[in-house]
């Protein structure tokens, strides 16, 4: 059996510790079951993405600083946030391929005794699952197939785009998350405009535009009678879970669609009790599907 690297430096990002801890709790749980060892970052600064709109230079330094810290540790980075993964990947690729830019950024890093060499990779959690852990091992970890559930997936943008820098899956027809969902035994439903953006980055600039985008998605998911929406991004999750009630009120809609972090779904299929997967932190009530899962017979 091939032995891929199964030890990663955990890059949490800002949004997850701030308000999406259920993602972290459930992801750590399932990664542990899948023998992925996580080492904590020695110190932390934001990946830089939030400041890219106002200072590309600052984004480059913030990202490069994290890559340099990981290089010192000699470990590849795993992130739960696709924004962090995308930024670290992009900057890694830019600096590796452009000596002038690398020298310029290293001048900044040198001020703090750091250097970017280009010796580590950064990957999102989902990419680690499919490439390093492998589908077979994930399937084997399933002790309670979720055949009773029909769900929908939402990849979000930064896990896939821009294609030139991310180089993972097909942004126009992504398959990885569907495959991972099906590995739990659940059915993954197709729906309209699956790859559409959640709108999160527009919150604060125009809440109305952002929430209309999220509403559109929830409508499509509702139309196919999905019992849950599965996400892999903290910001997408905030748009659909945290804001679902707000969207219902604003547009006079009724959804009641629970929004699960993928590791929560996989965790259920691994027979991990829901309370260990932080289901209690979800805003939209998920008790109906949990009841369905708990009442189903375990059949391996």
């Amino acid at each position, binding site marked *: 059996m091939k032995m891929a690297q199964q030890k990663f430096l955990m890059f*949490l990002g800002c949004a997850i510790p*701030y308000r999406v*801890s259920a993602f972290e*709790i459930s992801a750590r749980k399932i990664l542990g079951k899948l023998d992925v060892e996580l080492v904590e970052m020695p110190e932390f600064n934001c990946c830089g993405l939030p400041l890219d*709109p*106002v200072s*590309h230079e600052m984004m480059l330094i913030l990202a490069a600083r994290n890559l340099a810290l990981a290089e010192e540790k000699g470990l590849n980075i795993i992130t739960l946030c696709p924004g962090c993964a995308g930024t670290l990947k992009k900057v890694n690729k830019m600096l590796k391929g452009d000596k002038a830019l690398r020298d310029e950024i290293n001048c900044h890093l040198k*001020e703090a005794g750091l250097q970017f060499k280009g010796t580590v990779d950064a990957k999102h959690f989902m990419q680690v699952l499919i490439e390093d852990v492998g589908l077979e091992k994930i399937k084997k970890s399933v002790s309670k197939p979720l055949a009773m559930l029909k769900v929908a997936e939402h990849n979000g943008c930064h896990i896939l785009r821009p294609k030139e820098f991310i180089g993972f899956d097909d942004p126009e027809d992504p398959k990885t998350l569907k495959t991972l969902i099906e590995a739990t035994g659940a059915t993954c439903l197709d729906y309209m405009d699956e790859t559409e953006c959640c709108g999160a980055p527009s919150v*604060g600039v125009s809440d109305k535009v952002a929430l209309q*985008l999220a509403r559109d998605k929830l409508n499509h998911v509702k139309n196919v009678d999905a019992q849950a929406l599965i996400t892999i991004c903290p910001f997408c999750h905030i748009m659909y879970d945290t804001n679902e009630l707000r969207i219902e009120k604003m547009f006079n809609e009724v959804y009641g669609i629970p929004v699960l972090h993928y590791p929560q779904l996989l965790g259920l299929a691994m027979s991990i009790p829901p309370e260990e997967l932080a289901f209690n932190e979800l805003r939209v009530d998920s008790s109906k599907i949990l009841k369905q899962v708990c009442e189903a017979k375990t059949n391996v």
Partner: protein
Amino acid sequence: MTEKSVKASEIKSDFKYKISKMHGGEKLMRCFQCGTCTSDCPVARFSDTYRPRQIIRMAQLGLKDRVLDSDTLWLCAACFTCTDRCPQDVEVASVIRVLRNLAAEEGHIPQVFKDQCASILESGYAYKIPELKLKKRESSGLPPLPKGNPDSLCKTLRSVDFLKHVERKVE
């Protein structure tokens, strides 16, 4: 964006060259206005004003003030659909980002970015994570949150122009 006609006096002909020299803006002049970006833009579907094709054309023409002063510029959700689908390989979302950077240089900086920058300098994190959250991590069995290193971080950012700009504005 505004519908008023273009006056020769408002055209800054060197604007496009400035954009073309910045990371992500290199291919601005390749755009032939097919409109794929706008028709595929999720924000344009729900916004009455945000039209990436129009912004690109205005940038090509050199309508610098109209573009940089406009709030519309900040509506892009950076989903990169336009970049991935552009038949001319224009990195549309990156051109928008270049324009935002230029707007920021001129002092057009939405408050949210100033707040996040200040928070990053102080703690490493873009948001101020409350003490209660840190305690809750412990009780949830999560490892302690890695700490920022503001001294080291500020050293690496010392010569960044934007920082001085924001520091002055934040406090």
